[in-house]
């Protein structure tokens, strides 16, 4: 039986007085919707339709976005050469979990900051990025630390504290789903051992992160995450 997104997020047995059946997560109606629509339009990176034109934030057709119900993001993993539309399948406090039709997913916390990835291999297990979120919200520049938790080849946790610096780059025109808008760009430059990487956040006037390029790790590289629909 089909469920409303609301019910899905709260679990299958969410109704206080009576039990209800639930769909399974992988065939969540929203994820299914993405699969169907993306498949039909021949779009996409990754496993959905390798032959179609690459799916990017700038070129994702507004019609596709309009057809899909509920919150929607596009996640481009440039180094892996794949891009996926993701719908929200979980919400735990400020942290929203998003999933693609190919069954990989990410969790975004306050400020749109990456909390974890799943299903990519070399996943980011968890982060503590509260100082970054606070600085972004206040558009504050300067030094900021972040904690990244990864697994080594024996599945043991590696906890790395990266020292970063936030700077305000100013307004930047960004094209999303064919429409251009002006966003404020902030850049976080981080030192992780011998690696150096940058996270870029593009914020709207309300302070929400509309598009970001966030670093996952040396194997996965960056994810470009774009909010297409609230």
């Amino acid at each position, binding site marked *: 039986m089909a469920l409303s997104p609301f019910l899905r*997020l*709260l*679990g*299958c*047995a*969410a109704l*206080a*007085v*009576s*039990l*209800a*059946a*639930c*769909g*399974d*997560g*992988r065939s969540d109606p929203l994820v299914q919707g993405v699969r169907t629509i993306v498949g039909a339009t021949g779009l996409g990176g990754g496993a959905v339709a390798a032959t179609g034109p690459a799916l990017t934030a700038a070129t994702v057709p507004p019609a596709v976005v309009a057809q899909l119900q509920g919150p929607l993001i596009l996640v481009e993993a440039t180094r892996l050469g794949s891009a996926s539309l993701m719908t929200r*399948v*979980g*919400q*735990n*406090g400020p*942290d929203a*979990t998003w*999933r693609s039709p190919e*069954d*990989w*997913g990410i*969790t975004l*916390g306050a400020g749109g900051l990456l*909390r*974890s990835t*799943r*299903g*990519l*291999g*070399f*996943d980011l*297990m*968890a*982060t*503590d990025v509260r100082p970054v979120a606070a600085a972004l919200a206040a558009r504050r520049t300067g030094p900021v630390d972040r*904690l990244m*938790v990864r*697994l*080594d*080849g*024996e*599945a*043991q*946790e590696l*906890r790395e504290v990266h020292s970063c610096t936030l700077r305000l780059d100013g307004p930047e025109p960004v094209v999303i789903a064919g429409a251009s808008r002006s966003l404020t760009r902030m850049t976080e430059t981080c030192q992780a051992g011998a690696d150096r990487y940058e996270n870029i956040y593009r914020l709207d006037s309300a302070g929400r992160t509309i598009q970001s390029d966030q670093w996952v790790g*040396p*194997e996965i590289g960056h994810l470009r995450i774009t909010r297409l629909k609230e």
Partner: protein
Amino acid sequence: MRTTSRLCTLAFAALALGGAQAASAQTEPNRSLSAQPTLNFYGLPGLMDMPSAGAMPDGNLATTVVHFADQTRGTLSFQVLPRVTATLRYSVIGGFFTPDASPPAQEFYFDRSFDLHWLAIPEGGWWPAVAVGIRDVVGTGIYGGEYVVATRHFGADDQLAVTAGIGWGRLGQRSPLGQPFGPRPPIDIGLGGNVDFDQFFRGDAALFGGIEWQATDRLRVQVEYSSDLYLAEAADGLLSVESPINIGATYRLGRNATIGAHYLYGNTFGLSYSLLIDPRRPAANSLVTAAPNPVAPRPPRTQPYATGWTAQPDGPAILRDNVARLMEEEGLDLLGLSLDAGRAVIRVRNTRYQFESMALGRAMRVLSITMPHSVEVFEVVFVVEGMDVSRVRMSRSDIEALEHAPDGAAQLLARAEVEDPLGARDPELIEILEPGRRFTWGVSPYLETALFDPSAPIRADVGVRAEARYEFGNGFVAEGEVRARVAGNLDEQRQVDGPVASPTAPYPVRTDAYLYNRESDARVERLTFSHYGRPARNIYSRLTVGYLERMYAGVSGELLWRPVDSRLGLGIEVNHVWQRDFDGGFGLRDYDVTMGHVSAYFDLGGDFEAQVDAGRYLAGDYGATLRLERVFDNGWRVGAFATFTDVSFDDFGEGSFDKGITLDIPLGWTAGTATRENVAATIRPVLRDGGATLNIEGRLNGLVTDYHRPRFEDTRGMIWR
């Protein structure tokens, strides 16, 4: 359960692994000579024929192959401890007849040998690294030699290494300085397998040395002064040493493979190959599986959560369907669900996730999505072969609170209780039991190898096997396997070194194995009916009847005591078996024996596990087996074992006692997917009749400890994966 595909093709597996590992995107290894020393012709840190003072990165495995002057040496080396390297070597020497011309002259001489290399003093300050090594500790002694060697590195990246050492035995042949520790007694090749303590560091001592230079990231150049005169080989006309100077170069291909070319002893060219495997670095991607279902947190609790659902008539069916659907999606089998208003218990069979914490975390999240809000306590009971092996209890609030916490994995497991499932009663308000019946089958090719046959280093058969397994539930299992050979040369195998002439020699319980290859093309590999059970708290049981293995049929019973949080286990196994007919059918021969052992299993902490078995072996001999394994958290195991029984070394024959090394490689490590399959290999220099044991599937300790507290702790990083 650890599903095992038996494959004894170590070399092939190693090559395949190395290839895959080389292809994966990983950071370049340290180019320094000290961090990643060159492996010499004996598979140990060194130059070419000479050793140096170094160690591979801890836990690394390496295989090397070198060929020069009609001899080929293949090695398997393991960095057992940060400063201890062990290597097992198999050599094929053309036209070499051994010093005392026995065994009888043959076209090729095959030799197995084992070395130990200890980095006694690491390099520091101005002080060089110092290593002590013993070649051919328990073998026939043809490579016997000992050394003390020092190496000092120079340069910002340790790109220059200067080595000097003193050697005995083979390494004490050129321009000896004298005999500092007295004369070396004459070599007693005998049966091999004896530790020749009286030979070590005795006799002539001589100096050797060399220089190695890391020319580029991939190219290394070596020059050495060898103290080995190859006296025995020279006597057989294999090699005449004209110069002590050897020169060579090695070039690293990809990440792990190295090839080398060498000009040796003034007149000979040699080629070498080495391959490093680091079990800590998966060959494939770290692990790609579908993302888990997220936690579904409850709305804040402003008043007690309603419990009216417990009276809903279709409630049990809805809950069961919801849980079953999500569990199936996660690849976990649901065997039962019982709950009341505050507590839910599911019984789970994990046939998918090699990291048990991953199965645990996913099962808990399924409960968080499906359970009514009033259910605060979640319990997952893991079921293996029908046995409830552990109960993990978590608070739902913890699961909700820690889903995205940076130390969520550690905290969740620290707050979890892991206990014997028999220690608590399940809720009885709603109880749904799934039958747990399961039928699995498969048809696949197989490759079977025999290493170190007296007349060929490796023989192999390929064929087709069909397996089927039916789980009746409640611990009853029927399973069988038939094999049909398609091609190969195992039937040409001969009995190892012929029968032992002694009248007190044991019955040929294993040396008859070649007859099974010779007399059957198709066979029933095994056909058994088993029961697994939980007779009491902390106790597990197994009873197996039928065709237990290729050579024996009968009855096997086992009891194991192992608390869920214990690093110690105690077991007893008793078997009565009859030898099977050579033709692979259902017939039996007239040899039968009652045998078995008591066992102690120790988790030594760190990465080591030990097992001691004492009892009666297949030939009716009494004795004990000691087994030591290095266990990696990702499922790799590298072990060694030795068995001593009342069969005398003379009656045992070549090798003197049973011993070998074992290797377990999880397929998930090579494939990067979630699977509990692994590849297991046992390498014995020689398989004889003393200290022989049964090859039975389903021994208890390996089955149950996978879901005990120490294993969850070892894999806890995967709990939110």
